[in-house]
């Protein structure tokens, strides 16, 4: 035990001040001391608690003398008396010299980040800055019954606890020093709640305007390959019973071995972006599927084959021109549909509520990633139109390579991006549009083509540069492989992908959508 239970602790009110109330001090850790200690209750003026980084109790410690002893007894004589008292256990007679009790202002420990973890903090340095090592006789804590389970290691001077509830907790560190002084340092600890316990999962209104299921998933066999998709409402939306703003759509043409993959992320601030993303994916998917039939590929195949062999600029221009009519037209059609929906909704609103309310495409703001993939006997032709954030990559781990299929849009601050619905992403110059928004490649094979909204890329890639990092894609794939049984190639893959979408990442709680062709 850190304290000497035989020590006689006697203290009287400070005569000079005269206004103190007398109060008994609870003996440490439930031990009964054979004599009660009288201390004054004269609170020091409210001072800013110091943090434990400095010395304990701040620089002018001790600031509050709660009780003092008869000054005449302090000294060598008293020290000898204390020593002899200690050798005389349980005599029941207060033979030792009185001990001065010095109460210091509150010191704050660094916050405990969340409940349920093992918290510990070293106090050795703080003790060393307050006392000379030879001064200290013993150090310990008075264990308050507050459910925090304080503990103190007398050797290492580390204080620890395992809080089960959030809140503010205090414990007293008692330092017995030479000259019969006990310094009491109240230590205060703030324990944050575990954010996981604070998130609520409130369903979005089933019959609300543009209602959408809070999650969605899909699986489709495509010859040897499969398309799997999952979309999960983010915790930040679930907390507020707001709907999911992400969406996805896909199409596979078995006759032409051609897939269309589409994901979209409705802007968080736009009130109807859930509908914007839905219109965007459906329209774009349908348009591309419609314009890439047998005749289209018959016309394009020689150019794509030639480009694969020679990478010549003539073939490249031809392919880009055709992608302009396929992908960019599809994206623009989606934008037009959104403009139209805004107008129609305004009219409906007026008819239904007899209220004039202005709606515009801005209220439906959404990103769009639109990927077209077609298998030829010489390899895979893959083309993408991308506006906004998120990410799309052709993952080729056997080549230790990922082809990021475009350039993400980002602004000066977090969350800023471009949307399909903005006029600024539609320059008049077709070449500018192609250069900025269209990307195509021909590859022999791939492990997967992966499309993601920023709900996935933000936590998994963190920065734009990391979207080009094969290590990050490898990590993502390894993480997925632990949860998703890819080889099963049935609906359970989509179930597992959707379940994986619930992964925990502090501060990243946006809607998450992922589509994989593998």
């Amino acid at each position, binding site marked *: 035990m850190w304290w000497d239970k035989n020590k006689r602790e006697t203290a009287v009110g400070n005569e000079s001040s005269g206004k103190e109330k007398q109060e008994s001090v609870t003996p440490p850790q439930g031990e009964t001391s054979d004599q009660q200690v009288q201390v004054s209750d004269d609170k020091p003026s*409210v*001072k*800013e*608690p110091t*943090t434990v980084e400095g010395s304990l109790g701040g620089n002018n410690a001790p600031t509050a003398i709660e009780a003092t002893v008869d000054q005449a007894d302090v000294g060598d004589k008293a020290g000898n008396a204390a020593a002899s008292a200690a050798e005389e256990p349980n005599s029941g007679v207060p033979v030792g010299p009185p001990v001065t009790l010095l109460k210091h202002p509150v010191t*704050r420990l*660094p*916050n405990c*980040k*969340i409940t349920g973890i093992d918290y510990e903090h070293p106090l050795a340095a703080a003790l060393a800055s307050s006392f000379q090592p030879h001064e200290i006789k013993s150090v310990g804590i008075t264990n308050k019954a507050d459910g925090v389970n304080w503990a103190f290691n007398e050797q290492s001077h580390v204080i620890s606890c395992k809080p089960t509830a*959030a809140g503010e907790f205090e414990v007293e560190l008692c330092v017995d020093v030479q000259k019969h002084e006990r310094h009491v340092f109240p230590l205060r600890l*703030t324990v*944050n*709640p575990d*954010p996981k316990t*604070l*998130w609520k999962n409130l369903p979005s209104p089933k019959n609300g305007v543009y209602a959408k299921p809070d999650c969605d998933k899909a699986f489709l066999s495509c010859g040897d390959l499969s398309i799997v998709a999952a979309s999960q409402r*983010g*915790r*930040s939306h679930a*907390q*507020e019973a707001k709907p999911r703003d992400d969406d996805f759509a896909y199409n596979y043409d078995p006759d032409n071995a051609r897939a269309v993959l589409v994901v979209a*992320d409705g*802007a*968080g*601030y736009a009130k109807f972006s859930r509908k914007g993303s839905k219109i965007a994916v459906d329209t774009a998917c349908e348009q591309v599927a419609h314009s890439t039939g047998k005749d289209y590929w018959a016309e394009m195949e020689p150019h794509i084959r030639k480009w694969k062999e020679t990478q010549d600029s003539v073939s490249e221009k031809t392919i880009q021109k055709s992608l302009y009519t396929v992908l960019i037209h599809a994206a623009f059609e989606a934008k037009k549909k959104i403009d139209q929906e805004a107008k129609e909704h305004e009219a409906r609103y007026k008819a239904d509520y007899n209220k004039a309310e202005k709606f515009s495409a801005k209220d439906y703001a959404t990103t769009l990633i639109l990927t077209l993939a077609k298998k030829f006997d010489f390899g895979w032709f893959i083309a993408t139109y991308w506006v906004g954030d998120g990410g799309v990559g052709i993952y080729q781990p056997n080549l230790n390579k990922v082809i990021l299929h475009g350039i993400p849009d*980002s*602004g*000066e*601050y*977090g*969350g*800023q*991006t471009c949307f399909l619905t903005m006029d600024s992403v539609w320059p008049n110059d077709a070449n500018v549009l192609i250069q900025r928004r269209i990307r195509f490649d021909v590859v022999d094979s791939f492990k997967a083509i992966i499309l993601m909204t*920023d709900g996935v890329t*933000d936590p998994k890639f*963190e*920065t*734009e*540069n990391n979207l080009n990092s094969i290590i990050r894609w490898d990590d993502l794939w390894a993480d997925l492989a632990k949860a998703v049984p890819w080889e099963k190639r049935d609906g359970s893959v989509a179930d597992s992908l959707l379940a994986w979408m619930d992964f925990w990442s*502090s*501060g*990243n*709680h*946006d809607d998450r959508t992922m589509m994989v062709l593998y």
Partner: protein
Amino acid sequence: MRRLPVYLLIDTSGSMKGEPIEAVNAGLQTLVASLRRDPQALETACLSIITFDKDARVVLPLTPIEELQLPVIATPESGPTMTGAALELVCQRVDQEVRTQSADVKRDWKPLLFIMTDGSPNDIQKYKEMVPECKKRHFAAITACAAGVSAKIDMLKDLANNIVSLDTCDSATFSQFFAWVSASISSGAQSVGATSQLVLPPPPADVYKVD
């Protein structure tokens, strides 16, 4: 993790001494306590406090809510209100602390600025110079609180896109104000993906919105 930086500028001129500043301290405690209970704020919000009287100082650098330990704010006996100096300091701090525009780091959300004053700037020249500087920092919202009858609302109109006023500087009113600040920060933390100006929740009964 993307941070939501929140700057609180608090007038500590002599007129705030006594009950007003004690109410501010109590209000800040409530503010932080309620942010700790909001998962989005707990995970993303960072708070900085700058006080201003005869000069401006950072009493709390930008700190995540989970690590935050509130200082106790004190006031001098008397003295001028150097609001312009406070704006200059917050611009410097934003430039230093808010992470923007890089492909290598995770960008912060647009910061929020709250300024609370019970008077009017004594450094008017500096104040007028700093208003456009503040605008350049792209705060998602600049909210001014005119506390008490002496607060000059007109001066705040150039600066803030939301202004509220408090009739009295007592603890009940401040408590409502800080509860509203907390709700505003929470709504800032939730408007993930926002590019437009932040729309703040409606203020409570004793906090009047000034149009």
